[in-house]
């Protein structure tokens, strides 16, 4: 029906804008170069020769949060580091996602004590939790693929009301609520 019938074998395909955008987002997702503890080593191992994360379009790490889409919180977050992590998250441009890699980032793992934030979800909203201490590179890759699946199903509508861009009746942009 529709365009497909008219186009015949002309060599192009049609899709929804949403699917095209999400396809682009999943296959060129840039993680922030940001390691905290032991999990960072396994994150490096996942990007190195044996596991080769670039098979999933994830090899371009960005040291600047402004250019990154994905924050992999790899390791325990101490109370001294927590404000830094939140600031990095705030500096990332929308749309952005967070993977809590490892038990420490998910729930503080074995470190139930004064120094460690009991789960990074107290500071930043987490999309995917990866279990393990540290998770094997395969687990991280699985977590990343899970995130890709999640992103593929996202709507193009603003991800949250707080950050939505609003327009008045004449089509002029009004202040973003929740922007800083």
């Amino acid at each position, binding site marked *: 029906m529709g365009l497909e019938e008219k186009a015949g074998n002309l060599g192009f395909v049609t899709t929804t804008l949403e699917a095209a955008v999400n396809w682009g987002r999943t296959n060129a997702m840039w993680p*922030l*170069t*940001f*390691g*905290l*503890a*032991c999990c*960072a*080593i*396994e994150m*490096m*191992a996942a990007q*190195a*020769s*044996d596991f080769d994360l670039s098979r999933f379009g994830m090899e371009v*790490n960005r*040291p600047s*949060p402004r250019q990154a889409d994905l924050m992999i919180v790899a*390791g*325990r977050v*101490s109370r*001294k*580091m927590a404000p*830094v992590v939140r600031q*990095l998250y705030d500096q990332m441009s929308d749309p952005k996602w967070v993977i809590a890699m490892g038990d420490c980032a998910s729930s503080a793992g*074995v*470190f*139930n*004590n*004064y*120094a*460690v934030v009991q789960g990074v979800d107290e500071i930043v909203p987490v999309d995917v939790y990866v279990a393990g*201490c*540290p998770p*094997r590179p395969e687990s991280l890759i699985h977590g990343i693929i899970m995130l890709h699946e999640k992103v593929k199903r996202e709507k193009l509508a603003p991800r949250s009301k707080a950050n939505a861009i609003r327009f008045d009746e004449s089509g002029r942009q009004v202040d973003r609520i929740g922007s800083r």
Partner: protein
Amino acid sequence: MAVAEKGVAERRTAIFNSGKNGHVSPGAFPTPQQVAQAAREITVPSPRQVIAANAERMKNSSEFEQSMVLNMGPQHPSTHGVLRLVVELEGEEVVQLAPDIGFLHTGIEKNMEAKTYQQALVMTERTDYLGPMINNLVYALAVEKLLDCPIPPRAQVGRVLLSELTRMNSYLVWLGTHALDLAAMSVFLYCFREREMLLDIFELVSGARMHTSYIRPGGLAWDFPKEFKETVQLFLNIFPSRIDEYEALLTDNPIWKERTVGVGKLNAVDAIALGASGANLRATGVPYDVRKLFPYSGYENYDFRLITGTEGDTYERYLVRIAEMRESVKIAQQALDNLPDGPYATSDRKIWPPPKEEITYSMESLIHHFKLWTEGFKPPKGDAYVGVESGRGELGCYIVSDGSNKPYRVHFRGPSFINLQALPHMAKGQVIGDLIAMLASLDPVLGEVDR
């Protein structure tokens, strides 16, 4: 970037031939007077002091000779973790700098006090996460010193073998990230290729890749699997040629030499005054290796050389570590060849649980097993300090026992924590681009710095 007077080839030969005759001459260590002199000159500034000093300098200088304070980290691709450096710069030149640490403070020492001796073991490998087996070892040795518990030869030799494999693992990550920081991407990929082989060995013996908890107070967690010998032998056969590969990529590489030769010099006296240890100290020419000077786990029975450099610059630290990897292969080969049969843990039933078969027919064994896994063992009152040579220097563990089943106080002397103090001294007057090379060659692991 000064190119040293001595040719690179001669330096390499000198390092690879160092320690050949095997003995340590006392003249090689600095004298107390030299240390006292160095101590008067060296300061380790704090971030607050650097900022205050800069503000003072800004007040008295004209518009054109102003310096600036630059903040590096805690999120920075080349600070090897969450290290923050407060650097005062005059143009490109580092006037002074101060590391700000604690961003990974995990409360491990306090947390270990709340666990029994067996449970606290899992905390140890999370300090220096690149050398898990050596961290297990130092804790196990300290607890065994408190318990005064002899270890069977199979466990002793196995511990040495695993420590050396861990050291290679640790050096491989150091080499990979050091090269990556100086823009040599392929070395990183090669190093991690060999590291995967080592992690496969760790997984074979313990079931985990990184946090193994395999060396335990009293012996080894369980016996080596039957494929162990041939897997390690395969690795040891391959590895020397792989070290040649890294050397072919780096040792004579003009870019590598330009970035490392003469960069971040540290002399022997300053290194001693700053408490440096490990390859950072040996590259300055001080023949201090805990394995040689204060042998543990039977290291005195192995034939290996104590590698020392002379210049103490970044290039020398690189060469010393490369040479030590080759020595590690030698030690591991000797340990593998001489791995005796026999029990893998102590037979003291108050420390190590009885085998499963014994529990089924012996009431006493059942009680021992139950008591061990509910209460744990109770070392007598006292305190013990044990130092071992980890991938970064002397890793010390100080345990105080109050006679209960939980350690009263555990303290780790993290070699990275101490070595990091040398950075402000090394970096003075160097350009900021070389700061990355110096930091990478010091090889700090932030988990151990902050604990």
